[in-house]
């Protein structure tokens, strides 16, 4: 499978370890924090692509995670995380999105990392994946 940001990962020097070996293709429902308009350019861009300077002092593993799209396995998990973050920073919506979107991840979208205790996982997109077409906004959360 070819990955969408393979060339940049090569430039960064992490192509050999990224995506991580434990990430596998999977079909599952997923939830993501996004901005109101589904076609907002910021919605489905990995954070490394948006803000590479944030990774200057980060490890290769963290940089690799920066190429993944953050997703949650359930609405409850997503809302819980958002609430915790919004308790810390009331403006959190400005940086991670103000709405919750729901979509179906398919096998050919890329590979997903194991789901952690908070219901979170990363999707490393294949070069044919287009998440804009597969997600719909379900509610405002900010």
């Amino acid at each position, binding site marked *: 499978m070819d990955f969408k940001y393979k060339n940049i990962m090569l430039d960064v020097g992490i192509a050999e370890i990224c995506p991580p070996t434990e990430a596998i293709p999977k079909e599952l429902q997923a939830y993501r924090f996004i901005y109101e308009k589904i076609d907002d350019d910021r919605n489905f861009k990995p954070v490394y692509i948006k803000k590479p300077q944030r990774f200057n002092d980060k490890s290769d593993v963290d940089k690799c995670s920066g190429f993944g799209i953050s997703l949650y396995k359930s609405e409850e998990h997503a809302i819980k995380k958002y609430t915790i973050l919004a*308790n810390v920073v009331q403006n959190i919506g400005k940086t991670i999105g103000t709405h919750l979107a729901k979509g179906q991840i398919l096998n050919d979208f890329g590979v997903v990392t194991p789901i952690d205790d908070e219901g979170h996982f990363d999707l490393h997109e294949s070069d044919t994946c287009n998440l804009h077409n597969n997600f719909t906004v379900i509610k405002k959360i900010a």
Partner: protein
Amino acid sequence: MENLSQIAFVSTHFPYPDLSKISDLIYYEGPILSHFINKEGKDLLYLWIDSDSKHNRWLIFEVDRNSLINYLYKNISLRDLVSKNRKDFLLISDINENLISEFNNLIQKENLPEIYLPKEDSYFEFSIPAIYTNSLEEEYLHSLVNDSISLKIENKSNKYLSAVKVDNLLIVLKNVKQSFTNFISINFKKDFTSEDFVNLNFDTLFSTVIKDSELLMPNLEYGSFCASFTTDYLMSKEISPKIQQWRKDTFTRFKNEVIEANFDINSLQILLEKYDEYDRKAIYSPILEISKDSNDYKISITDSSFKKVKKTLTPISKPIQEKLVPKVQLLEPEKQELLFQIIGIGEKVNEQPKISKKNILETKELNYAEISQSTNTISYHDNELYLKEQFDFKVVYDRGTYIIDYSPFEIHIENSNFESAKNSFYKSIIDLYIHLTNADENQLSLKDIGFKNELLNIISIPNIKN
């Protein structure tokens, strides 16, 4: 971004040069809260609060190590770290894409826009970064020692040089612990009521607080025997932050009001007003016992390194002692009866379940239960009613109260003790029987006649002695 021009002072320079980053404490697609340290070892937190197309806005504030530990252990919120900060002025810095701090504003805590303040519930709900765990353990032990009461126990005679008799040591440890446990119990019930804790069972909470308030000895030294005493208020995270803070404050109060107390007239008056004679006896008797002149050991309060003696525990004067701890007989504390359900693996012996202790899988405290009871004899004191058949009734347990509601005889019993509830029920039936059988049949109402027939129907032999 919020306009700060009316509420903050522009700072022409960034006041915290030469910072080293320790770690991001909260990270979500970028740092949200980061910990830095400057050359002088001052700890600073950077909290991301806002952004526009060119800048990220950070709230930057100093934090002492103890508060930081308390924040990481969820004892205080981030909002408190900001709003109760020791500094009156906090820094708001607008940092550009090249990580240059372009605009700096000093703002008074009170003027901080509400949108930039963390919410009340901003406790640390994230993993503590690995870099902190070892140093935090050291800090934790250090903070336990710092907050502790340090006592030095020595023989009065030189018979065994500085060696202390084990019996004396045990008495001192036992009495300090007893005084502290009583102090915690008494003050908890003074400071809180069940209304303070919605959705929490007050008695269960009380038991948990007592259990978690074990007296610890974080530091010991031998020769003569030196020990620090304290209680944990960081590690027990299951109770609310309000309780954690209370426990910390209460240990300090114990130190001031009991161990290090000067029983002058003013302090004594405060204690007399605060605690009744039973409370005072429970708290102060164990300490007066180990301060007696006749003891062959003496106790000194020292600094945490046991080097400097702050005070020696000496007996207080008789008149003050008589006021502080008058001669009253302590009543046994009322034990509260709880109902438990035990699930275990066992066998039937003579039709009865038999489960050995080691095969108990789960013990659950119940708030509600319906308990089926049956008997062939209704007895109370010397009176007995032998029954023709097994008599069945139900005892309902509802949050500490046993209720027997037996409608055929219109008997309703409520009691906090299971056996007492059953005894009252049996007594009511026997009283009813005596009343109905002694009464003139013509005087009885239709309902009473119904009760009497029902009773005679189930009783085979009455054995009424009085």
